[in-house]
């Protein structure tokens, strides 16, 4: 783990625009949770939090988008603007460059999303039956999902300069559409795996929340995707060509 690379990545990712964007996005689930709490609708709070607030909004949209923004910027933006050359021209094994970048982007996504999950979840369902279990389950799941998504998007950014678009296609086409139509593809969905972890940790009645994927399958899938994506990203960076035909 190279601390200078980690420090550089942290400074890159905490740029003003990106941080403001993420803070603005964080306000959405927290505002919804407040509205839910204040209006007191008849729906069971734990069920609303698990299925809608955290299940759809946070896990379905905010988590992958945050990981996408931070993961593709961790090294992809340097490759795009040419500053990657300052790292790649150093006598360092490529894993020493890539792993801190992955760790920082995953860590920031994890911290940010766990805080949002805890804040929104506890506002909407704190003190309610099953509320604590659901929020704890989702906090753990979101932490795991942040690592998997980050590994995936960092790898994408090393493979293609259109990593952000490729990531959006994965999140909104594959995870939101294809896995709904073809249920067998859910094993290849980080979102489904994250929900399965939340279900496994929360251990609440299926009327409150029930994931489509078995927890053990989700754990295997997450471990496999993180490992394979990281190895592929390191290999790709090792053979990364910088140049132009001029």
């Amino acid at each position: 783990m190279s601390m200078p690379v980690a420090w550089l990545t942290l400074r890159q990712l905490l740029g003003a625009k990106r941080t403001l964007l993420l803070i603005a996005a964080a306000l959405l689930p927290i505002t919804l949770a407040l509205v839910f709490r204040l209006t007191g609708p008849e729906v069971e709070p734990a069920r609303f939090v698990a299925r809608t607030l955290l299940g759809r909004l946070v896990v379905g949209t905010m988590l992958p988008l945050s990981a996408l923004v931070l993961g593709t910027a961790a090294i992809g933006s340097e490759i795009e603007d040419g500053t990657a050359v300052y790292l790649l021209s150093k006598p360092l094994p490529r894993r020493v460059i890539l792993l801190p970048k992955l760790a920082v982007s995953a860590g920031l996504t994890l911290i940010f999303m766990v805080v949002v999950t805890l804040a929104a979840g506890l506002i909407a369902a704190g003190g309610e039956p099953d509320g604590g279990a659901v929020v704890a389950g989702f906090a753990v799941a979101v932490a795991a999902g942040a690592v998997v998504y980050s590994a995936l998007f960092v790898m994408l950014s090393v493979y293609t300069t259109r990593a952000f678009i490729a990531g959006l296609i994965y999140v909104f086409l594959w995870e939101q559409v294809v896995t709904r139509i073809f249920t067998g593809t859910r094993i290849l969905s980080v979102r489904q795996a994250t929900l399965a972890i939340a279900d496994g940790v929360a251990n609440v009645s299926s009327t409150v929340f029930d994931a489509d994927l078995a927890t053990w399958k989700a754990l295997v899938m997450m471990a496999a995707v993180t490992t394979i994506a990281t190895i592929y990203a390191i290999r790709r960076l090792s053979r990364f060509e910088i140049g132009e035909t001029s």
Partner: protein
Amino acid sequence: MTAPVPPPPPANVPAPAIEVLKVSKWYGNVVAVNDISFSLGAGITGLLGPNGAGTSTMLHMLAGFLRPSAGAVRVLGQDAWHNPSLYAHIGLVPEREAVYPFLTGWEFVRLSAQLHGLPDPEAATRRAIAEVDLSTAQDRATGGYSKGMKQRVKIAAAIVHDPRILILDEPFNGADPRQRLHMMGMLRRMAAEGRTIVFSSHILEEVERLAEDVLVIVTGRLAASGDFREIRRLMTDRPHTFNVRSSDNRRLAAALVGIPAVTGLDLEDGRLAVRSSDFGALTRVLAPLARDSGVSLFEVLPADESLESVFSYLVKR
């Protein structure tokens, strides 16, 4: 000395720092570099070529950032490609202007020192920044630097670990004349200490003033290599043009028409342009011919003594 394949060095000659052996690089059907061989030892070598000639591709291969499609690039006896450990001995100044805009100059150079694992990164940073004369601006964010300052901070980052080989892609871009002179002096000093320095430039005066040797790449091929003046002399089939001012250009032109070495004459704006396929013959006959014709010569200037004209000729050939 065109497109030479270097012979193996004698046993008592140190191995070259950079060896390029029958290297080609292609992208699909586009050939960027075509079967180039050369070797470089200590000193300054200028890499010259028009846009799209393959100079940047060549520099990227020297720096180990591009894998040759054929042939081998060897740096300090090792393959350059896929060999990060070599960067302990190489300093690289890329052409692209981008630096990390949120870092100060000091932080940028220190980052380079830290990534090289230097025992005292602070001292190395101070030394490198002083070398490029950027100490007064070292605490400002590089995002606010001028183009010339960015070039200098990039050079400081490239020399912070005191490399044996320095590769610079268009290093003087944006530098003002004073900074340019300063950097040239620094590079000459580094070369005198035994380092191998190779740089590309489109500004021909820079190449002429700084480089001891020149590699001219045209459409992906090594069109010429060696000492600039030597290259000029070896191009015997190259037509030369002289601009002549005399007391009677028209009469002189009439006298020159019958000379076999003269291939063309132009009369314009009070001067006579004389084209010749035989540089030596023309210079021998011009003065006697003018005297015999009763014409006084005021000025005879070669129109094509710059590197630019050599280069233009190679491109057209």
